[in-house]
């Protein structure tokens, strides 16, 4: 193969596809990216056998071909060349990368060893605004587990609900639920969040097609495609966790609450909770860490309900408050040992359910 393209364009497609590559992969071939040139187009594929990212670039082609080269090194080499045109030329087992003077020669890997990955047909796909989906995923994604021992919980549930798509994630301590109206889909699939969090950085946030297949989920934009193996499991019955109604309702300013919890978190270690003592007129936040000290402050707000004190992990609370996209935030509670529900005062399409800490 032999092609020519602008440095920045080439560096971009290499880097985005390279994000699917695990540098710790036990299979050397998976530390490479596959370059394929045909029909005036360069296709770059990176994969870790679970997540695959494919990017495309229109290039000046002298010769078609296929080649696998080290992902990280190739992307960095191109990025560090002087600005301007870059030439990639494969010759006798080496890929020559040149532009503006410098010349890299990278040993090629055996292209036939690279996993065969065919593109799933995007029939029956649903159309979404990529930017909106990515924002919604980041809201629920904070509640997804990162513990590989509990694979089901590392995914986000995509669930069709009438005329809306519902996204759900939980690590068993908190639960995020986001409804995206006007997106019609059926059935439900669990998609690993570690792949979803890469959507924006790999295939961009333009108009997006989604296909939720039995084995794979595919996300396609004009900039590329990301496919990921879906998690074959039954998602927890989260519906039973969502309360019918809470007796107590606190409404406070989101930014003020974030700052207050941020100060409390300074004193708290990860496992030390912040206490929220709620009463008419607002909430008192208090955190005590033995042998270190404490922090207390009062936050004005509206409170309807019985006086109550409940304690939350500061990080989990911060995550939830951050994810609510509204100026005022509502915390609904019923019992110090039962979960609290966070949502916006106006916007209720995102709900964050958080288990308390028992003191």
């Amino acid at each position: 193969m032999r092609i020519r393209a602008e440095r920045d364009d080439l560096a971009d497609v290499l880097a985005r596809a390279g994000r699917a590559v695990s540098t710790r992969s036990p299979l050397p071939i998976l530390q490479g990216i596959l370059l394929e040139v045909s029909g005036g187009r360069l296709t770059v594929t990176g994969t870790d056998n679970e997540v695959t990212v494919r990017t495309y670039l229109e290039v000046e082609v002298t010769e078609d071909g296929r080649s696998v080269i080290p992902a990280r090194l190739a992307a960095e080499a191109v990025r560090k060349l002087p600005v301007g045109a870059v030439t990639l030329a494969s010759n006798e087992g080496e890929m020559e990368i040149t532009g503006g003077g410098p010349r890299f020669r990278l040993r090629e890997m055996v292209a036939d060893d690279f996993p065969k990955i065919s593109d799933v047909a995007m029939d029956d796909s649903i159309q979404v605004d990529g930017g909106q989906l990515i924002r919604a995923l980041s809201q629920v994604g904070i509640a997804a587990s990162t513990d590989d021992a509990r694979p089901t919980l590392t995914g986000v549930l995509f669930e069709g609900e009438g005329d809306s798509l519902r996204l759900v994630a939980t690590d068993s301590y908190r639960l995020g639920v986001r409804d995206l109206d006007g997106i019609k889909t059926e059935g439900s699939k669990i998609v690993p969040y570690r792949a979803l969090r890469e959507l924006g950085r790999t295939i961009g946030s333009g108009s997006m097609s989604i296909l939720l297949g039995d084995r794979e989920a595919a996300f396609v934009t004009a900039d590329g495609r990301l496919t990921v193996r879906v998690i074959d499991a039954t998602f927890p019955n989260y519906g039973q966790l969502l309360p019918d109604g809470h007796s107590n309702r606190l409404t406070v300013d989101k930014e003020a609450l974030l700052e207050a919890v941020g100060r409390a978190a300074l004193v708290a270690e990860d496992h030390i909770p912040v206490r929220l003592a709620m009463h008419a007129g607002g909430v008192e936040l208090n955190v005590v860490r033995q042998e270190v000290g404490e922090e207390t402050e009062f936050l004005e707000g509206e409170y309807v309900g019985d006086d109550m004190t409940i304690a939350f992990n500061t990080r989990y609370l911060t995550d939830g408050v951050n994810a609510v996209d509204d100026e005022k935030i509502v915390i609904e509670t019923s019992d110090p040992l039962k979960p609290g529900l966070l949502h916006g005062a106006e916007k209720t399409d995102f709900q964050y359910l958080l288990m308390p800490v028992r003191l």
Partner: protein
Amino acid sequence: MDVPGILHADLDAFYAAVAVLENPSLVGKAVAVGSGVVLSCTYEAREFGVRGGMRVVDARARCPHLILVEGVFGSYTEYSRTVFDIFESYTPFVEPLSIDEAFLDVTGSVHLFGSPADIARRIRRDVRKQTGLAVSVGVTGRKFLSKIASQVAKPDGMIVVQPGQELEFLHPLQVSHLWGVGPVTERKLGELGLETIGDIATTPIDALIAMLGSAAAHHLHALANNHDPRPVERTRRARSVGAQSALRPERRTMEDLLPILQRLTDRVASRLRAKGRSARTVTVRVRFGDLSSVTRSATVRSPTASTAALMAIERRLLQKVLDRYPKHEITLLGVSTSGLGFDEPIQLAFDVDDDALGGGTPHEIGSRALDESVDEVRRRFGRDILAHGSDLLSERTDFSDGLAEVMIKDD
């Protein structure tokens, strides 16, 4: 003002002494406990140069008539408990250092039992009478000094250092008596001609710093001048609680090992609960026929002392070991818990996941009621009144029930 009385009480050749007590035919003989490595040996064996930590082969080379016996760990805990009960009958300020030694602050007990030296005598007498074991005691006003005194007093002796006479006692002793002086430091000191503790005390601190670095130099210089302000800490926190069981070398399946794991877990978990602790990190250790061993650990978000919750974690860890080493003969199974908290807040969890591990899950919260009942029944009727069905139904494949040793480590 009270006379400061800090005792260091140390059982003489504890493991070996217990072995002799349990088998009177060994009295007066050179006996060592251990397999592979000498854990402990009688003074008769020490006369031939046998020492703890020595390889059995080397020990036999020095003492061909050495009698080697297996440890009986259940008995050790029993004896140890009796001895510590005696300590605690004289003062509440008992700081255990290990299964066979402790610091005691008896300053507040003199009006009840007489001078610190009197108390030391009574303790030695009680221990001898109730267990048959010899305990050596150092009696001084400082922890490190009492520890040195008890070592000098061995075997079966006691040394009292009166206030004002500390330096007189300390300075002629070899440097190796000081805490923190191992073979390497001892050699370094020897190269400079520093052989006794008095030599260190009279060496300018700068010279010591040049040789040993600042921390070690200040430490040794302070001790050599009898500075050690540390109080006896009754509440000294255990850093880990564990139990292990030696097994006949055999290949074993999960099914074979589960009853043993259950028994070890039962001991560890009830021990944790008795101390009011819960653990965040759980470690499973497996030793193979070739004496190599592997460990697998897991840390959970919320600490737990629930038998069921700990068992679930350990089972998963043990499975990992068995998957990795399916064909190895297993000679020891151990579990250990660390990251111990006291009365910690518990992050509660939803009931979403049967695989959830650690504290705060609905399953774990539910199992606490059972644990409490089991603990209460055992408190009233004795530990053996309750056992797991798997334990009762399984064939005993470990050496003996008493072999499970509960280990509590401070460091």
